[in-house]
Every structure is written in structure tokens, then in C-alpha cells.
């Protein structure tokens, strides 16, 4: 079997795609790539649609390298990737929903994001009216077609529908359990309730507006999303960001990771009715958010990262606030770890439940704590080594167990690493003042950029095509949850119904970032 470079090198690189090459391939090579994915030689980073094309970003291991392959859709069809490589199934369904490109030979042809409530089908493609009807007038409610859940038939099996509206205040998503008494036989997710049409809104948007949209993909990953988007735009337009801004960006990304990980550790324990941990973690998280507010003017640091640099000033006063914060967190963490580790009743819940198999984590290329808790050692900060991480020293913790406990421990260890990273960044003293090399419309033709950035959940992929007038022609942001939601279905199988909230919280996938 030919390897990745043998397949791709036969095709010329498309001009103005940075920093990794994009090649327009033919259907046969597309199929060959699919086979490589199925064999596990390469992993899927993203699969997204475009006008008349589909793009696929893949990651080759050892050495880590990224490549993009594009295929022109003949008659609106392309050979299905999901047929051989399951992680692509939902992405293909999304391409069909948004662009109308059909994956020929696909095993699952149900819609994914399109719940039949849109006024158009394929809103980014042909824009045809919904099946069997005229475009309904604005505001009129139509009865959407029923979703065809996978049928599970057997003696004593019963269904438990949960959501999309939950008893707690969380994002909407539907979970259809088929259970035999308490044991879960199968879980099927249905997402897309918070589809906002971000990719449609991005098309034609000026850079500033597009950056604001990117920051609003998923509130808890706003820094990572902004960073991914900005890096992609900078790559496309060839903008060099000043070293100071690069450092402050990483500082923000680590603070976001810190806040989310600590919040998650508390929330996971709270789902085992251990409210004490949540109380302590919430206080700590609140301190981080307040320090972020003082340092960057926004608790979540939204809109602080813009293409070209930063929109905020970061000086010595702000650095001092962060230094004090790090000291506070360093002081509090050992007690929290001890509390987590010494509470036998809590360990009894987290250890051994919701086991994600190594093989599955590898196949789905799960990022973040989901992958690293199941033995997949990949971290975009280390392996893609985007600045400033190329000159900072840190470890990427990996555990093999794959249970809830492992995912909690990865978070705990990453908190320690993030604290170390923040200290390193602060000692190298980022230069003060606003640093923003605003990108200008200088290029003659459309340029494209790709970025892979490590958010707290995992690697976020951003791909943009910038028009000559410095507006976004097409932007695709792929949240890490795309490759984590499906494995949750597998990890929960055989567990008991009452353990689902705990397992789900340990995955903590994004609804908003996924539905986009």
C-alpha cells in the first residue's frame, strides 16, 4: 500500500495555501487516503465542504505532519470516507446538510445538523427548499420529519429518551438510551440543537467581524477558537505576529485551560454527589476568572486575540496579577488532589467507569484529556509546536486506563503543566503595550491558511480562505468534540444508566462548538 506522501506527491500543491500543502486529488487517490485512514496509518483532522469541493485534513504520525487533500465533487458526489473510517460519518452528514454534497456509498445518510426546521436545505450550497415543500414563510413552524434512531431489538430492552432540555442548566443535546434494566445496551446521540450557522455568517464577513464570530463558537474555548482562527488568517495573509503578542496569547490559552480543567474536576466530582470538591474548585476557578478580568478586561478573555495580534494591552501590572494567581493556585492544588485521591467513595465511582479503549481513541484521533487518558499521546502544542511552545518546556501527561479517573488525572497533571508554562511565559517578560500588526488587504488573489491549536478539550482545526479584499471567503472551525462525542457512545456501553452523567462530564464535550 502506498503511504501518504506517495499518494499526495503525485499532485501539485495548490498555491497560496499555508503553512501545510493542499493538493487537489482525484477520486482514486481520495479512496486510497480513505484506506490509509481505515488502516490507522494516518488520522483524520477534519473533513469539510466547500463550493463544489470537499477538503480533508489528515495527520501523519512519526514524524507528525499535516496535509490537506481536496476533491472536486463530480455531480455533487464524492466517495464516502465514513464507509471505511467511522470518525468521518458525522462530518459527511454535516457536509450533506450544509452543502448538499453527497457521500456516495455512505452507511448513514440521515441528516445530522439539519433537523428539518431550516427554511432551506443545503444553505451553503444549492439552497433548495425543504423536501417535498415550498420554502415556508418566515416564522411559520413546520413539523419536522421524525429522526430515525438506530433500532435495538431484544428481550427486556427499553428506551430512555433524555433531553434536549435537561433538568440542569446545560446545553441542549438528545441522548437516546437503550437499556436492559440499568445496563446501557446502546447510546445514540443527537446533536445540532444549537446550530447557529457560524460558517454561513463567516462567509463574506470582514476580518474583525469574523474574529468576533470565531470567539463565540464555544464560550469555554473562546481563547483557543480565536487563536486557531487568528493563526489560520495570519498564515493565509502572511502576517508575522510580534513575539510579545505570541507569548501573551499562550498565556491566555493556558489560563483558559487552567480555569476549565479546575472547573471540570469539581464538576465531575459533583456528579458523584461530592459537592465539597465542586465548592473548592469553583472558588479557585472564580479566582482565575477574576484575574483574567483584571488582566485582560474579560472574564473569559473573549475577543482579546485578533488576527495580527492582540486587542488588549498587557503590562507589568497585569503580569503581577497573574503571578499572584499562579501562587494561589499552586498553594491550593495539593489539597484538592489529596481530597480527590483520599476520598474512597469518590474513587469508587471514578475508577473503572466509562472506559474508552486505546484502540478507539487512536482511531478517532481523540484530542485532549479524552485521548491522553486512553494512551493517545498527541498534543498540538508539542507536536505541531506552534510558537511560543517551541521554546517552552512542558510535559504531555498520558495515561493508559481510559476511565473517568484517568481523565480527571490528566486534567490534574495538565493544571500543573499549565502553571509551569505560565511561569515560564511570565519570566521571559512579554513586552508591554498593545501589539497588533493589523492585516491589510495587500495580496492579489485569495489565500488560504490552516491552523491546529490545542484548546483545553483538544486540538481545534481552523481553515480559512481570505479574499483579496481581506474578507473571509470561507472558514471552517472544527471543534475537538467532533471526535469525542462518538467515542462517548462507545465508552458508555455496558455501564449503568446512573453512571452516564459522571462519564459524560468526564468527556465534557462541547455542544455549541460542535453544532456551530
Amino acid at each position, binding site marked *: 500500500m502506498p503511504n501518504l506522501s506517495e499518494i499526495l506527491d503525485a499532485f501539485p500543491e495548490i498555491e497560496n495555501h499555508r503553512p501545510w500543502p493542499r493538493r487537489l486529488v482525484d477520486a482514486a487517490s481520495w479512496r486510497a487516503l480513505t484506506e490509509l485512514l481505515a488502516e490507522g496509518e494516518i488520522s483524520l483532522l477534519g473533513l469539510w465542504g466547500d463550493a463544489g469541493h470537499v477538503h480533508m485534513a489528515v495527520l501523519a504520525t512519526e514524524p507528525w505532519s499535516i496535509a490537506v487533500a481536496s476533491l472536486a465533487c463530480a455531480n455533487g458526489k464524492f466517495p464516502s470516507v465514513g464507509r471505511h473510517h467511522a470518525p468521518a460519518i458525522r462530518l459527511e452528514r454535516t457536509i450533506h446538510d450544509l452543502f448538499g454534497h453527497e457521500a456516495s456509498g455512505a452507511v448513514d445518510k440521515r441528516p445530522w445538523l439539519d433537523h428539518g426546521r431550516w427554511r432551506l436545505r443545503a444553505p451553503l450550497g444549492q439552497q433548495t427548499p425543504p423536501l417535498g415543500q415550498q420554502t415556508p414563510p418566515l416564522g411559520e413552524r413546520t413539523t419536522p420529519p421524525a429522526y430515525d434512531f438506530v433500532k435495538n431489538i431484544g428481550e427486556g430492552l427499553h428506551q430512555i429518551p433524555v433531553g434536549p432540555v435537561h433538568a440542569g442548566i446545560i446545553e441542549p443535546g438528545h441522548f437516546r438510551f437503550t437499556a436492559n434494566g440499568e445496563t446501557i445496551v446502546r447510546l445514540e446521540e443527537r446533536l445540532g440543537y444549537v446550530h447557529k450557522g457560524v460558517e454561513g455568517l463567516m462567509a463574506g464577513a470582514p476580518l474583525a467581524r469574523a474574529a468576533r464570530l470565531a470567539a463565540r463558537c464555544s464560550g469555554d474555548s473562546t481563547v483557543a477558537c480565536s487563536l486557531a482562527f487568528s493563526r489560520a488568517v495570519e498564515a493565509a495573509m502572511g502576517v508575522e505576529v510580534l513575539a510579545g503578542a505570541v507569548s501573551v496569547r499562550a498565556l491566555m490559552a493556558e489560563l483558559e485551560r487552567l480555569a476549565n480543567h479546575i472547573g471540570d474536576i469539581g464538576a465531575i466530582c459533583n456528579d458523584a454527589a461530592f459537592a465539597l470538591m465542586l465548592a473548592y474548585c469553583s472558588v479557585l476557578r472564580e479566582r482565575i476568572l477574576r484575574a483574567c478580568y483584571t488582566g485582560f478586561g474579560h472574564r473569559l478573555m473573549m475577543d482579546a486575540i485578533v488576527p495580527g495580534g492582540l486587542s488588549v494591552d498587557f503590562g507589568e501590572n497585569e503580569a503581577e496579577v497573574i503571578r499572584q494567581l499562579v501562587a494561589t493556585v499552586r498553594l491550593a492544588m495539593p489539597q484538592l488532589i489529596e481530597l480527590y485521591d483520599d476520598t474512597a467513595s469518590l474513587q469508587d*465511582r471514578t475508577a473503572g467507569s466509562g472506559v474508552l479503549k486505546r484502540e478507539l481513541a487512536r482511531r478517532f484521533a481523540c484530542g485532549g484529556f479524552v485521548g491522553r487518558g486512553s494512551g493517545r499521546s498527541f498534543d498540538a502544542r508539542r507536536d505541531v509546536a506552534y510558537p511560543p511552545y517551541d521554546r517552552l518546556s512542558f510535559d504531555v501527561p498520558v495515561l493508559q486506563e481510559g476511565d473517568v479517573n484517568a481523565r480527571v488525572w490528566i486534567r490534574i497533571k495538565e493544571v500543573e503543566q499549565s502553571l509551569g508554562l505560565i511561569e515560564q511565559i511570565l519570566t521571559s517578560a512579554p513586552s508591554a503595550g498593545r501589539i497588533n500588526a493589523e492585516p491589510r488587504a495587500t495580496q492579489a488573489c485569495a489565500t488560504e491558511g490552516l491552523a491546529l491549536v490545542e484548546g483545553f478539550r483538544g486540538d481545534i482545526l481552523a481553515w480559512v480562505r481570505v479574499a483579496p479584499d481581506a474578507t473571509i471567503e470561507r472558514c471552517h472551525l472544527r471543534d475537538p468534540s467532533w471526535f469525542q462525542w462518538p467515542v462517548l457512545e462507545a465508552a458508555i456501553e455496558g455501564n449503568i444508566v446512573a453512571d452516564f452523567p459522571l462519564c459524560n462530564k468526564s468527556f465534557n464535550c462541547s455542544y455549541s462548538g460542535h453544532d456551530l
Partner: protein
Amino acid sequence: MGLIRDLSIQISQMLAVLLLAPLLTGFIRKAKARLLRRQGPRLLQPYFDLVKLVRKEAVVAQSASWLFRVAPYIIFATTWVAASLVPTFATGLLFNWSADLIAITALLGSARFFLALAGMDVGTSFGGLGSSREMMFATLAEPALIMIVFTLALIARSTQLSTVAGFMLSPAVGLRVSLALALIALVIVAIAENARIPVDNPSTHLELTMVHEAMVLEYSGRHLAMIELSSQLKLLLYISLIACVFVPWGLAPVAAGFSAHAIGAAAYVGKLAGAGFLLALFETTVAKMRVFRVPDFIGVALMLALLATLLRFMSRGL
């Protein structure tokens, strides 16, 4: 005169448990919140919640039968009667003859039966889930309670609570292993029956992990108020029961004067507060256990109670 006096004390006891029950729940919530370094809702919040619920419209599912509507009242009535039978501040009350441990067990059992039926009545998956879990726990908790009753009856030679309390106050009781075992068993049963951590989480919003809450998920308005008040009464009942049997100090005979009753009332409130705080402390230090581990936990209660009864049979001294 004697009858009126006895009746008024009996009625005041019945009203006392009804009025104190929400306060106890409020106190436990407050204590838990303070232990978590939070402010917590004010002590009287459960009363306001009940008033709010009574005023609200009761929404009933279309598929609900008459059972769904009457169940809250049956549950409330049986629980209230059971709670008023347990001596709180005075023993030897007017309805003393009916204050039988087996009667109380039976009343609680029927309340549970109707709650489980109501949970399944609407036909939602959560109600059925809750009912099946509740019944799984009950199959062990109820026999455990019966065995505890037997142990006490063997020691005090009566199932009448007033007599048992009187015996426990007398020097004849001494230190007994079987009593200690029965106490542990009763505490476990109380935790399980009242849907507290580690068996169930009364404050959870995770519909998949609920036991008690899952059964009452479809209730609203005055129906929910009845159910809530019944659960609060049940908690009070179990604490009163433990207090009456194992720490009966301060209990005044009905014939005693006003001052003795006042002391009894003060001692009772003190016992409730003490038990409430201990419960809050325990709940903050443990996580909830897996649903399938709960039968082991309640099974311990059953085994201990059984052991206590056996010990009593084999030796008078234990």
C-alpha cells in the same frame, strides 16, 4: 379534663412534627451549605417553597390516572400519621396504644407503595426507572427495619414505642451489643429511606441518577407540595425514632407538668439539630455510591439487624 389535656398534648405533638419538618430540612441544607463555605438558603426557605408550590397550578400529564392525583394525599396522610405516632417530647400520649413500631413500618411501607405506583402511572421512563430503583432498595430496607423492630421488641418486651422508650430510660437496659448493632442498622435504613447521600442525592439535577426525585418528576403544584412535605416528615420521623429509642433522655411522661414538657421539647429540638448537623457533615464527606452497590450497603443493615436479633435469642445479656 384529663381527656382534653391528653388530646391537646397529642394534637400539639401532631402539629409539632408537621411544623418542624420543613425547618429540619432547611437546617440541614443550611448546615451543608455552610460546610461548603456557601451562604445557603435561609432556614425558613422550605416553608416558602411549600407555599409557592401550593399556590402554583398543578400540571398533570394527560396519561395520568386517578391514582396519580390521589397518591400525594395518601402518601402525605400515612407519613403524617406515622410521624405523629413517634414520641417526640412526651411519652404515653392519647394514641399511645397505636404507636406501635410495626404499625409505623406498615404505614411507611404503604406510603412507599403508592409513591412507586404513582411514579409508574404516567408511563415516562424516568418514573419507571425511579420506581424500580426504589423497590430494589426497599426489598432490603424493609426487612432490615422489621428485624430492628424485633430486636427492640425482644429487649423491651413490647413493640410500643412509649414502652420501649421507657425501658431504654430505665437502668435495666445496660450496655448491649445487639442495641449497638440495631442502631447502626437503623441509621443505614434511615439514610436509604430518606434518599440521602450516599444512596441518593436530594439536590441533584441529573435525571438519570435520581431515585426518589425520578418518581416525583412529573408532579407539580400542590401535589408536589404534598410529596415534598411527606419527604420532610419522613426524615423527621426517622430522626425522632432514633432519638426516641436510642437517646430518650428528656422525654416527659404525659402526666408530668408543663416544665417537664418544656424540657422535653427543648431536648427534642436539640436532638433534631444534632442529628441534622451530623447528617449534613456525613453527606459532605462522602460521594454517592453506584446504584448497584446500594443493595450491599442496605444489606449490611439487614445483616446487622439479623445479627442483633440472633444475639438476643442466644443470650439475654447481649
